[in-house]
């Protein structure tokens, strides 16, 4: 990874985004992406991912702070930036009555240095669907068409807003392979996702956004390293947490008890796990539903969501049903500039 200052293809400094109604979706975030890096933005609903990406794509100016893509302001200097970027929105829009090939041809006419249409469709495995109307495509095929259009101009920087949402497992894997191949060929990729395994497996570095701020950032290993591992089990009837050795002596940094279920958090997984199992063996206790889990991105993510809900947020960990964060009526207030 080249982290040379000049090779920062994307630079975000103190970015803020405030919508018409006064809602502050992005509250001062900083990150940068080097050439040839895959960078993932993770976040809960309304964390500010799409609001951030829209500024990088040049769809909206920042309300505050500074954004540079390939050294230029993507909004004010769009003519310098657009020919070198490819964009896949969270929800692509294509006329439903055009065929796949007609859609790609229209897009190719709008792109400098476009690949031949069959080549672009081939990249995403849609060549066999060239003559099919867009309205007859499945949701996953539509996502792949969107990706093909983003790749038509052979972009140096690719913005992918939830590229695999709606894809089946095979399609998802194929998209990952494609993103890796693009990265290996030098393309810089910024993607948003709410699939943690996608970020973990694909991203060189990532940032977890929460309520418009960067809650954690770094390589997947760095972000997870800061998180505790987890041990959970059920104590049999008649046993209580107090029967265990003192938790602090086991290296436990936090615990929860819900009925019979005990959940321990630790930064010393082996030590804590050993102590718990040794105690159980000596006390002749059977620990049911024993689950020992090293720190993961999921844990990091849930930890951030948990802190948030503890701080008054409600059910911020709603990962499964991500819609367009910040796509409320505020955003519809935007105008032609």
């Amino acid at each position: 990874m080249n982290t040379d200052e000049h090779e920062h293809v994307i630079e975000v400094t103190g970015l803020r985004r405030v919508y018409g109604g006064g809602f502050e979706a992005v509250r001062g975030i900083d990150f940068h992406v080097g050439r040839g890096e895959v960078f993932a933005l993770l976040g809960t609903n309304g964390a500010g991912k799409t609001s951030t990406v829209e500024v990088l794509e040049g769809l909206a100016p920042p309300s505050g702070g500074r954004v540079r893509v390939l050294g230029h302001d993507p909004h004010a200097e769009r003519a310098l930036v657009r020919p070198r970027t490819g964009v896949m929105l969270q929800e692509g829009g294509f006329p439903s009555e055009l065929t796949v090939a007609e859609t790609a041809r229209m897009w190719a006419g709008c792109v400098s240095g476009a690949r031949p249409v069959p080549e672009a469709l081939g990249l995403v495995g849609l060549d066999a669907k060239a003559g099919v109307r867009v309205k007859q495509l499945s949701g996953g095929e539509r996502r792949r068409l969107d990706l093909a259009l983003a790749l038509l101009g052979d972009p140096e920087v690719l913005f992918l807003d939830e590229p695999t949402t709606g894809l089946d497992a095979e399609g998802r894997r194929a998209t990952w392979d494609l993103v890796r191949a693009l990265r290996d060929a030098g393309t810089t990729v910024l993607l948003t996702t709410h699939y943690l395994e996608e970020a973990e497996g694909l991203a060189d570095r990532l940032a977890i956004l929460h309520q418009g701020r960067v809650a954690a950032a770094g390589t997947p290993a760095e972000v997870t390293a800061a998180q505790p591992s987890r041990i959970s089990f059920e104590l049999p009837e008649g046993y209580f947490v107090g029967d265990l050795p003192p938790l602090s002596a086991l290296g436990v940094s936090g615990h929860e008890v819900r009925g019979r279920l005990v959940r321990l958090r630790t930064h010393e997984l082996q030590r804590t796990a050993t102590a718990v199992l040794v105690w159980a063996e000596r006390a002749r206790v059977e620990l049911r539903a024993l689950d020992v889990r090293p720190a993961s991105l999921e844990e990091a993510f849930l930890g951030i969501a948990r802190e948030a809900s503890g701080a008054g947020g409600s059910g911020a960990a709603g990962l499964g049903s991500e819609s367009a964060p910040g796509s409320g009526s505020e955003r519809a207030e935007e105008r032609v500039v």
Partner: protein
Amino acid sequence: MSNGVDVGVGARGVGRGPVATPARRMAALARAELTLLGRSRSTLLSAVLVPLALPLALRSAVSQMDLDDVGLSVGLVMLPASIGFSLLFGVYGALVGICTARREELVLKRLRTGEPRDAEILAGASLPVVVTALVQSLVLAAACTVVLDVPAPEAPHLAVLGLLLGLVLCAALGAVTAAVTRTVESAQVTTLPLVLLSMTLSGVTVPLELLPDRLASVCALLPLSPVITLVRGGWTGDLSAYEALGAVATALAWIVLAVFAVRRWFRWEPRR
């Protein structure tokens, strides 16, 4: 999709298409829009057939009017009326539907992420219906000339100017109206005010010459009035330079206003 994908990035710039110029981009968008026009039965019906059929329906009404007093003939009412229908239904009404449909399908938002500028996107979308209406107007003018014995225009440049101003104005007004149109179906309602107002008070069906003077002078300021005045005046040759300039200025003022409104209020993505 295949594994071990060859993404062809190494060949960047080799065997690739040309740089996208504004003209090339608009041509690509217009071509797609023309394909869509051919596939939309309802747009074809309202934009192509209605303007051709309405003059037939209007003819008997026009022949009842007292036209001799104001120096007009059935042909000199029918011809500008036909062009007015073509502008109102072929350009204005059709574009409200097209802009609304593309916005609701998120096509406009997707296009804005690419190289085309906002004006190019709207121009590309408008081009097919504008050209269709231009051809339609010429066909209708020719038909009126032959069927209704309309003499050759005395000041053709005024008629041409009026038609061109009308095409631009109706395209811009269509985009403005799309901003307040939520669905393609509701376009039938949102387009009614301008269509009815223009048909009755802009001289499309009832010549302004037949209205009381004071009303006529107010109606002359409506959006489509200067267009009809210029087209009719182009055929009769009765328009003084002062009147012609006034009509051109009124039309230009409406165009400026409409373009401003588009820049200010046009919606590029659906309300949610």
